């Protein structure tokens, strides 16, 4: 479309695109609005997530991270480009738990199962299993406002898993939590990711969190969002947020992130 003609991408990194990837984003652009006030949010972003891969997306404000996730989740359509999840089910988690306040923890988790038409008895077993997975069996009958932020995010995670998705999109899911809770949830998420062989696209602004969790960290530029760097994280798991290796790579990524932010200051 016309966007391609208007802007040239100087330093776009050619992405590695393995065949049969879980998420395949090719040259996706997204413009909001029209005419003079049009805002180019994403500029020919190409990115792929292999089956079972954990990819972290990082970028400063205005890099269109959340927009990208909405596109993958099919809540919005790209202005141009191709986007495919190969027919796999996708579920989405937000920074706020987005739980339904009128339902208990168990009922929140049950709702996607009901939407899928699963019989009652089967639902009950599945909900118990999911509650156990996120260590919330004792809180099944509590309503969201009776739970802490970390507990709410675990309910939200269980609810996302209840959708039997192979692809999990996470939009700064732990951004509002205290450090200790977040560290523990990293462990929980990592365990579930391995066990369920999920493909995860995880958006965060916390560089060390991205290094802690990701197989790969992808750096996006801001206004418009464009892939400007990819960092494979090749040291073993489980990683610590504060380990020397994590910090070392985080410093490297932060330096490039800072350059990107400075560019917008001039």
């Amino acid at each position, binding site marked *: 479309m016309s966007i391609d003609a208007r802007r040239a991408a100087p330093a776009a990194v050619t992405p590695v695109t393995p065949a049969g990837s879980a998420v395949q984003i090719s040259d996706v652009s997204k413009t909001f609005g029209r005419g003079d006030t049009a805002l180019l949010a994403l500029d020919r972003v190409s990115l792929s997530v292999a089956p079972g891969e954990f990819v972290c997306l990082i970028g400063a404000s205005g890099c269109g991270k959340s927009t990208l996730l909405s596109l993958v989740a099919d809540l919005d359509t790209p202005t141009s480009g191709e986007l495919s999840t190969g027919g796999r089910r996708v579920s989405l988690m937000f920074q706020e738990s*987005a739980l*339904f*306040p*009128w339902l208990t923890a168990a009922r929140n988790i049950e709702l996607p199962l009901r*939407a899928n038409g699963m019989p009652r008895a089967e639902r009950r077993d599945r909900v118990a299993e999911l509650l156990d997975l996120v260590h919330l069996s004792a809180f099944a009958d509590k309503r*969201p406002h009776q739970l802490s932020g970390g507990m709410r995010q675990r309910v939200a995670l269980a609810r996302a898993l209840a*959708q039997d998705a192979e692809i999990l999109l996470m939009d700064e899911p732990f951004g509002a939590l205290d450090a200790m809770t977040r560290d523990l949830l990293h*462990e929980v998420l990592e*365990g579930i990711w391995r*066990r369920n062989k999920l493909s995860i696209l995880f958006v965060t602004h916390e560089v060390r969190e991205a290094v802690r969790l990701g197989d790969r960290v992808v750096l996006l530029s801001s206004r418009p969002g464009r892939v400007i760097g990819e960092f494979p994280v090749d040291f073993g798991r489980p990683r610590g947020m504060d380990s020397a290796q994590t910090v070392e790579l985080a410093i490297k990524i932060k330096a490039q992130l800072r350059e990107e932010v400075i560019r917008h200051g001039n």
Partner: protein
Amino acid sequence: MATDTPASQAPAAAIAGLDNLDVLPPQQARGQFWAKAWAAAWPKLLALVLALAIWQLVYLSGFKHAILPGPATTLRNLWEQLHHGLIWQAIGTTLRRAVIGFALALVIGTVVGALVSRIRPLRAAVGSLITAVQTLPSIVWVPFAIILFGANTTAILFVIVMTAAPAIANGLIAGADYLPPLLLRAGKTMGLRRVSLYRHVIMPATLPAFVGGLKQGWAFGWHGLIAGEVVVIILGQPSLGVLLTNDQDQADMASAIGVIILILIIGIVVDMLFNVVNGRIRRRWGVAEGAA
């Protein structure tokens, strides 16, 4: 494959510890029911005593002494009225109209509110009109209704609908307006569409605002009902409004005040019922924790 223990077991102990620290302390025991009831009741009782005292003082001061009875005379008059069938018949008629009129208003208000909140052009056209109608004093509908239907029950029901339905519709519209977009997104992500999205997300999310609208609709409808009854007099059908009119004709102030007190009590009782429902929903939704 999974040769290990459930992979998430490692942090379990730490998580359990944090959760136990995080959860709210257990709610206060329900055993203090009477203490709570007393705490809620005494300011109201005090207000009642004060009102009676002021009334008694006005009476003692001799203001309009020939017309204005004191509390003792009035309450004795009301007590005597309550021993006759007429006043119970009147209460019955008025309450029956209230129930039928409110039910009609509920259906009409809900349908109009649902349509207006969903259809954008309709919203632009009719939205502010509904609020405008709501600000009209209820009495203006009485002549209109009598000309349209004649001096009969239909006219009175019409007045109730015209006063209560806008408030009910507005409650629903407000609920739809403040529907958190994030909850809609969450619902859509999990595959809820159209009917199921309505049933599982939109309806429960708008319920608190809807009940707020019902409460307000009741208050307006009650105004309209009594206004209608004072004017529309149907032979052989005594109502609280008709009793008021009779008292006016006979300049029977003691009886008139007694009827006013009855109307006040009924209004308060129904309002309290709405408050109970409202409070329960708000507590469930986590909007007003523990607040009664």
